[in-house]
């Protein structure tokens, strides 16, 4: 049978092709070194990373615990507020501010998880749209009627609205207290404050509950690789958060890098000078801890983007990208840590050179995440036909 003869030739050619590259690669590219052979199984180097394990680590050890921690902080904000409501004095105002700041910091650890139920709610915009619209807040308080479900009211609620009520409504503490204790309008302000707190709390609680009642399993089970798989979707969301909300929202927009004109009024926590720096650093910590798979509130680490990159590198044998990314996060943190309050940097320097330099370091992580990491993991951005060019 002539036909069969050619089958063997073709198969042999194929086999030759495979076997020859195994033996040649030492000479040609050094991809398989002796070290690799000794530490891996007899098949040579291999990527064995399990995305499902990473997703479970994200959900169980980072995302849900972060929501729980936030709800604790927001519960404390509520009880502190109750105390203040009953007795509106200077001490209770100070405690209320502290509780607000703690909850706001805690928010920075959940803001990045805008996927699933949070995405459905538009949680990030519902809770932290700034600059807040103080006129709108005043008119809501004056009229006593407002619907927090309307997108048009997003800039009259959330943490920035609380910032205005606590720190921006008057110059001195005595005057702030006077607003809340005013015989005719004081209760209206107090009620508005309470409504904002409960809007925040109920939205996050609903998201957390959705994670615990089903979404966690959906999220972890969707462990494939496609534009709709959890890893691909979330990595896109994660980078989007870093680029749009951490980099641009907290620094770039106030610095005017997108418009050419500085805009200190767009600073997060505008009415509390200095706090915007802390909020940025909390946000950066959350991003880096997530990247490294660090369990919330613990030093333990699990499978993560960093360990995924390490695993992929066992066959790629390139520069350890996870280290480069961590180094860049650290550089950015150091640079931002050396700044004065963002508001001071922007308003008292023209141009605000130091803050721009710090921004550049924050920016430098973007191509590492968006180009190198996405490329290494072959993250899909969209479902379209492609032939890789």
């Amino acid at each position: 049978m002539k036909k069969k003869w050619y089958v063997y030739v073709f198969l042999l050619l194929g086999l030759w092709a495979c076997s020859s590259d195994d033996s040649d690669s030492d000479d040609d590219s050094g991809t398989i070194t002796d070290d690799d052979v000794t530490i891996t199984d007899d098949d040579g180097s291999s990527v064995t990373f399990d995305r499902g394990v990473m997703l479970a680590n994200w959900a169980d050890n980072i995302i849900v615990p972060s929501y729980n921690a936030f709800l604790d902080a927001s519960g404390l904000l509520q009880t502190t507020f109750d105390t203040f409501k009953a007795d509106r004095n200077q001490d209770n105002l100070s405690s209320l501010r502290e509780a607000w700041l703690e909850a706001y910091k805690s928010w920075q650890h959940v803001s990045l998880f805008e996927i699933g139920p949070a995405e459905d709610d538009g949680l990030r915009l519902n809770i932290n749209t700034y600059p807040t619209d103080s006129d709108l807040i005043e008119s809501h308080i004056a009229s006593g009627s407002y619907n927090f479900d309307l997108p048009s009211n997003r800039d009259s609620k959330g943490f920035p609205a609380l910032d205005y009520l606590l720190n921006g409504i008057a110059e001195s503490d005595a005057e702030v207290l006077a607003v809340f204790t005013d015989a005719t309008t004081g209760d209206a302000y107090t009620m508005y404050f309470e409504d904002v707190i409960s809007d925040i709390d109920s939205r996050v609680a609903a998201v957390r509950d959705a994670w615990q009642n089903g979404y966690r399993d959906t999220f972890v089970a969707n462990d494939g690789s496609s534009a709709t798989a959890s890893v691909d979707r979330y990595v896109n969301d994660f980078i989007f958060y870093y680029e749009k909300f951490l980099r641009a929202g907290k620094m770039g927009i106030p610095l005017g890098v997108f418009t050419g004109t500085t805009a200190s009024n767009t600073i997060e926590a505008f009415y509390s000078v200095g706090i915007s720096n802390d909020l940025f650093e909390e946000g950066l910590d959350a991003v880096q801890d997530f990247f490294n798979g660090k369990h919330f509130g613990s030093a333990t680490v699990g499978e993560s983007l960093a360990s995924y990159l390490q695993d992929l590198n066992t066959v790629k044998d390139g520069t350890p990208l996870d280290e480069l990314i961590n180094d860049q996060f650290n550089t950015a943190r150091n640079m931002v840590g050396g700044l004065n309050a963002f508001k001071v940097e922007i308003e008292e320097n023209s141009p605000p050179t130091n803050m721009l330099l710090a921004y550049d370091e924050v920016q430098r992580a973007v191509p590492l995440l968006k180009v190198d990491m996405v490329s290494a993991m072959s993250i899909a951005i969209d479902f379209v036909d492609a032939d890789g060019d």
Partner: protein
Amino acid sequence: MLPYLKKYIHEPHEAAPLAVFRIFFGVIMLWSMIRFWSYGWIETLYLEPKFHFSYYGFEWVKPIGNWTYLLFIVCGLASLFVALGYRYRMAIVTFFLTFTYIELMDKTTYLNHYYFISILSFLMIFLPANAYFSIDAKLHPKSRFQYIPSWNINVIKLLLATVYLYAGLAKLNSDWLLDAMPLKIWLPSKFDLPLIGRLLGKEWVHYTFSWFGALYDLTIPFLLLYQPTRWVAFFFVVVFHIMTRVLFNIGMFPYIMIAASLIFFDPKIHHGILRFISRLPYIDKSIFDTGRVYQEIKYAGLKLKYGILVLFFMVQLLFPWRYLLYPGELFWTEEGYRFSWRVMLMEKSGYAQFKIVDRVSGKWFYVDNTDFLTPFQEKQMSYQPDFILEYAHFLKSHFESQGHQNLAIYVESYVALNGRLSKAYIDPQVDLTQEKESFKPKNWILPFNDAIKGI
């Protein structure tokens, strides 16, 4: 004329293979139009974007609003008419024009196989694919022919062989063969496939696939041409294209190639396929088996037709080599990359941040690309110099229309290629508003500083 040449050009050949080819081509194209529409891609790729990337010289080809749907309807209907062989010549001309227009609307969606369909349908304009087993032939007994000059079959084989061979040659480079790139990046991400998923993380699998792919492309045309190896070759065609279908989002391409490779077979196979189709009502295959031989009418345009075909193949054979005229690494600059059967060769991604500078006041700001581009467009733009330049010019006219003047536009960009760490891509000191698109080398692309050896 040389007897050898005579055999491949003028000798009568059964028309059945061409009829089968025409039917499969029409059906698959109709299917692909429906598929494209059903995925909502007409909206997301052509209607929703605010800006479209044009091919150099084809800036006038743009989506035409809601008429774009009509374009797809006409193209789909033309496919159907081609399959039926009804008013074939008009149908295939319409198909070629509408399909090519669709492809030229936005180069973001460029795919080698779309280009393949365009040139194949162009070629089919010149072939009497309706001579046999078509409605045209049924309606007009005079133009019913069982035999056609053999060149009409052979040009399709030649085009297929060109595609495979050039795709194979393009794989003969150090990234593909020695580093198993980009498969080393792509295959591990397909870990979730049943049965083979776990294997795809293994390095030896990456090398096997790379080498087998190159060997396949280089040898398959010959194995298909040579009668004794034909069935084995077809088996490999099916396996190879099913694998690519499973591993990558390459749409309809695998089906097209599997169906197209049937052209290499003995007409007996095609008669069998047509007999099978004849089971449908109202089809009587026997009326086409007239034994008549299609004779090319000697009219004034005949020489022109042959001239066009010879020119067509010369262009096909030479065009992929144009990259040699450009300095620098082809994969990096992409000058001469497209329309050359370079398929699946690069994992390339980039990042491009545009800086708009007022040359008078020195004030500047950055552009948020998502204001103007879809994620898919932004991805494609970020690592292809001609996209970057075209986008910069678009930004200039956009911001000028907003009242800005004396603008200079710079880009900070990084590109990662086949697992290398990202590097600065476009010279950030070059004002892109001063650069013009042309076929000349783009000297504002920063050097690659690495070597990819090979063709």
